[in-house]
């Protein structure tokens, strides 16, 4: 695993639980194919052998919302269907991500019409929009890679001791205060809080039991 330290041929490596969790999560996305129109055909191409989303670990399309964590809304969404989509979305377990695939799902597209929702972001928290009518399967792959990058930059567990409420109660250990060891990709924003935490840790290295004041 890239960025791991201290294996030295000893048969083990160390990393941060955040990094390995995000690594696992981003490489095993299970899409919920909300295929509503012709975009769903391109979505099948995206999952099929030629474009092969299995290379990114998300070939397992799950038609059951309980087992999915990425909803791909492919196609135009009518007002009648929007309630079903929102219900399926609410049934998906957290954390979950959403792709609005194609012009219709993003903005209503050519369906400038009383029966079609003008963009599913009116009722869903969309993460990535794909343009195109319909988009090429490459575009869907690109959107999937965007979602993966987003997941890798998230604070899933580190939030508990560096950002969240628990941070004030956690002793700062030197190995914790390193900035993102074991992260696959450097986060785009190592934010100021982490800087403070590592600065505090470096200053007070002799007293690791001191609680961090973030």
């Amino acid at each position, binding site marked *: 695993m890239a960025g791991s330290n201290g294996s030295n041929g000893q048969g083990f490596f160390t990393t941060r639980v955040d990094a390995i969790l995000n690594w696992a999560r981003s490489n095993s996305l299970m899409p919920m194919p909300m295929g509503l129109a012709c975009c769903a055909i391109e979505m099948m191409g995206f999952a099929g052998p030629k474009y092969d989303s299995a290379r990114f670990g998300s070939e397992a399309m799950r038609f059951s919302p309980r087992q999915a964590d990425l909803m791909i809304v492919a196609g135009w969404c009518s007002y009648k269907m*929007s309630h079903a989509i929102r219900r399926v979305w609410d049934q998906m377990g957290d954390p979950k991500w959403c792709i609005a695939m194609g012009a219709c799902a993003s903005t209503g597209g050519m369906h400038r019409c009383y029966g079609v929702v003008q963009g599913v972001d*009116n009722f869903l928290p969309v993460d990535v929009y794909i343009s195109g009518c319909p988009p090429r399967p490459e575009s869907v792959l690109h959107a999937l890679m965007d979602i993966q990058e987003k997941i890798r930059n998230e604070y899933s567990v580190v939030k508990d001791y560096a950002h969240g409420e628990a941070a004030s109660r956690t002793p700062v250990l030197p190995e914790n205060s390193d900035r993102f060891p074991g992260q696959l990709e450097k986060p*785009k924003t190592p934010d100021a809080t982490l800087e403070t935490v590592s600065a505090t840790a470096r200053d007070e290295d002799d007293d690791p039991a001191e609680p961090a004041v973030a």
Partner: protein
Amino acid sequence: MSKPDNPRASNPKDPEELRFHYTPTHTSGPEEETDNPHAKDTTRVPDVIEALREEFGDVVLSLDRYANEDTVYVRKERIRDVCRYLREEENFDYFVDLGGIDRFTDEDRYEVFYNIVSTERQKRIRLKVRVDETDMRVPSVEPVYRAANWNEREAYDMFGFDFVDHPDPRRMYMPEDFEYHPLRKEFPQLGVPGSLPLPPQTPDGELTMDPFAAARGSQPVKSYEEPPVDQDSE
């Protein structure tokens, strides 16, 4: 060139048959009728129209011919009798389609059209009735052709016709409490804001009544805390 008396005879290798023909927009004479293979004379039933005229007299208002197809305008009070006659006497056994038209004129604003096929003759006939805005009642043809049931419901949904004696006069597509008839010309293209509810922004929230909530800054809550985007890193 297919023979006009046998509409099923067709030779796909005949280059003459592959030639593109414009559908004539003017009233065509008899010599042009066989010239256009795309306007086959399956919609020409002069003998049936003649029989209708004899049976019903001035109930048959007029006869319109466009693109080599006949359209019979019928007085709307007798449309069910005309359909029953066509079904029982003239073997028009297959009800294909029914729908509404909004012509947006001052009088006789709406039309309802009926496409009926005789599988025995391999001929089709198109009937139309004119409906004025002040009196939206049209006799339902559902007692004659049961296939008309859903089509009449749809026409009621979209235009607001009152199909008398329809057994199940509910809306077809729009919700029961929808107040408008969307295919009328005066209905706005994007709909009336707030007439159709969107799902709530949170699992247990209120319905979203603004169809353009995102454009007005509404942001549905994400299930995770999004890291802030660094503009410089791109």
